[in-house]
């Protein structure tokens, strides 16, 4: 069975909510929309206090090419354009909307009928994806239209759909594949058309045999789509790892990107969002979020509007347990721990994980015993122990030479370290500093 070739670990899967069907969450009293929900320039607000909006009304315009517009997920009145703390922990500009009723823009097709045919030309598809504010739904939130527009001299050969969901606990993508297989398939064909390729792969890890079965069945009805079962290994959902696993091609070190080896990688959630945007005229304002945790009474998967405070999802999943020590936006390997639970759901919120006090505490670091387990675990072929030590010593020149820019921050090194060292903390410090040095160098030239 296929998998990526360098490093990797296998954390306990803990997919507590795997058998829970997607439930639709109730509307909030107020929805909050941070203007920076994607990689790239923040969007600019185009509504002001007192404006009346509907579900699907554009409330913020893209701030550049690498950016995406934002749509209201509720109907009601704009309360204020202010700031809000988001998952990054920073206070950023945001639009607050008081909810009144549930009135949708008329252009949106709200029926469940599957629309298979799509007659749009590739450029039109990309334009429509851009106008619908679709970004990568796996968590990185890279604007989808940018990925579909190859830089000069590059040509896509295939579209790879990421159905790996290698983060422990998360099941949002799994439920989507189980319940919306047809829509995902149509989404994939649209993405293939937009990228002007006739080959699409859907990578799914073999810990999800049901999803592999269903999608393989569906794939026979669509031209050029192949489901590739993969051996379960973290971080297979990493873009570069997934390309290596499926095509046996390795994307060279930065600044190279996947298109340099002919691949366009999109998440299954993105494929679904593309289906809705193109076939249903529905911009991106809803997503599926897994709410999970060992102490939580009812781990669930919710279809929720964006802008809903996370506390509402946690309440719907049984309420925040007494012993909650940490709340994580995303999965346990790469997710961000949150300051509070009032943070709104955004385009990149794949899950909310509640850890109890015991799980939440970091272990005391001990001296490095040079066991080399981090070197074996590193999926980018780096030496984490060395990068961490060099970063701690602020030897930035060597940190750069040892390849810190290639680090994808998957956390496998720290996960494996028997001395419980905070390897990734130091490596991040090194990566950020070296990134700044590289940028300063290129502007000088």
């Amino acid at each position, binding site marked *: 069975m296929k998998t990526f070739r360098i490093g990797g670990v296998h954390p306990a899967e803990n997919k507590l909510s795997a058998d829970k069907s997607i439930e639709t969450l109730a509307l909030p009293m107020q929805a909050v929309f941070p203007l920076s929900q994607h990689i790239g320039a923040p969007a600019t607000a185009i509504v002001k206090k007192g404006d009346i909006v509907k579900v699907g009304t554009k409330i913020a315009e893209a701030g550049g090419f690498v950016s995406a517009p934002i749509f209201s997920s509720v109907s009601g009145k704009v309360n204020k354009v202010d700031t809000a703390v988001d998952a990054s*922990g920073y206070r950023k500009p945001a639009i607050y909307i008081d909810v009144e009723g549930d009135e949708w823009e008329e252009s949106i097709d709200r029926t469940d009928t599957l629309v298979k045919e799509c007659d749009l030309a590739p450029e039109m598809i990309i334009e429509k994806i851009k106008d619908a504010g679709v970004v990568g739904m796996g968590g990185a939130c890279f604007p989808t239209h940018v990925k579909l527009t190859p830089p000069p001299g590059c040509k896509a050969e295939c579209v790879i759909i990421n159905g790996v969901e290698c983060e422990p606990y998360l099941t949002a993508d799994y439920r989507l594949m189980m319940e919306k297989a047809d829509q995902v398939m149509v989404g994939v064909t649209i993405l293939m058309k937009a990228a002007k390729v006739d080959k699409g792969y859907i990578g799914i890890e073999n810990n999800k045999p049901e999803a592999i079965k269903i999608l393989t069945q569906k794939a026979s009805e669509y031209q050029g789509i192949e489901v590739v079962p993969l051996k379960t290994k973290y971080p297979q959902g990493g873009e570069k790892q997934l390309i290596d696993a499926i095509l046996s091609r390795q994307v060279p070190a930065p600044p*190279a990107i996947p298109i340099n080896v002919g691949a366009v990688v999109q998440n299954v959630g993105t494929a679904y969002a593309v289906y809705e945007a193109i076939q249903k005229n529905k911009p991106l304002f809803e997503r599926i979020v897994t709410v999970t945790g060992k102490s939580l009474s009812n781990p669930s998967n919710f279809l929720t509007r964006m802008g809903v405070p996370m506390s509402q999802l946690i309440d719907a999943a049984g309420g925040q347990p007494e012993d909650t*020590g940490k709340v994580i936006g995303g999965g346990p*390997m790469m997710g961000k721990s949150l300051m509070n639970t009032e943070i709104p759901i955004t385009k990149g919120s794949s899950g909310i994980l509640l850890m109890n006090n015991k799980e939440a505490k970091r272990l005391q670091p001990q001296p490095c015993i040079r066991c080399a387990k981090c070197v074996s675990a590193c999926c980018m072929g780096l030496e984490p122990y060395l990068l961490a030590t060099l970063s701690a010593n602020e030897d930035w020149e060597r940190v750069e030479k040892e390849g810190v820019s290639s680090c994808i921050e998957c956390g496998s090194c720290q996960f494996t370290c028997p001395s419980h060292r905070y390897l990734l903390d130091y490596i991040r410090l090194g990566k950020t500093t070296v990134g700044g040095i590289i940028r300063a160098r290129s502007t000088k030239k």
Partner: protein
Amino acid sequence: MANKLIVSLSPHVHGGDSVKKNMYRVLIALIPALLVSLLAFGVGAAIVTITSVAACLFFEWSISKFILKRNECTICDGSAVITGVLLAFNLPSNLPIWIIIIGALVAIGIGKMTFGGLGNNPFNPALVGRVFLLISFPVQMTSWPKVGQLTSYIDAQTGATPLAIMKEAIKTGDSSVLSKLPDSFSLFIGIPNDVTLGAGSLGEISAAALIIGLIYMLVSKVITWHIPVSILATVFVMSGLMHIANPIYASPITVLCTGGLMLGAIFMATDYVTSPMTHKGMIIYGVAIGFLTVVIRAFGAYPEGMSFAILIMNAFTPLINTYCKPKRFGEVIKK
């Protein structure tokens, strides 16, 4: 909000591995060899092992408390126990207690704590202790009791070891000397059918017991195969070629099953702290240890070369680490 939330960077989960777990797994892997040495040397083996472990623990504790003035106690992490057991495994079973204590002081004091304790020592502490004793007390360190004297300690009768016989064959150029050696199977299992021979140091008598330990460590992922296999393969090939070229050199199986070769290849060379960090580096390190061991055994002054070979390659480890880098992702673009 009643409770404050912990905010820290990812990853938020850990695989559950720990220094302690790895160290105790190594100790478990040493149990078969320890049992064989107790069966072979009885009370002598017990006294040497207990003294060595107790002395190593005492020196680790006292140096870290009174000299380094550290608050946390490191003797529970298991590394000092391993040093103690490995030092004992490298000693003859009739060694007086005071010499063992000096060995433990050198192993822990000079070999480990002087560099800052676990993780910082460039040389394998147990081998530092052993080689120090070998040079300081050459007579006591090279008189090897015969097996089966279960109740004797200092008074045990000694005899020539298989390694000494092999050395004699090379020196005299007379291959018939080698006929005094036990057959390969007895050497492998570790019960010499000829009790007139001295058996060697505590831990090295049974290749089979050491290999059981190796398999356990490989299965529990304490170590990878790279170092032991590259050492054993190099020794096998080199001594095989020498044996074919000239029968005064013992057969490769005999070479593999005698002396500290298995013990060194499986437990000493694989020490995390003093071995290279990449698989490629580990193989270079292992091949070099195998090569040096055979060279020292055949052409050096001492009958055994394993300890020296490992210490020499420990010294090269930083250089190997600089030279051998893992293959980075993206270096191979297409298959």
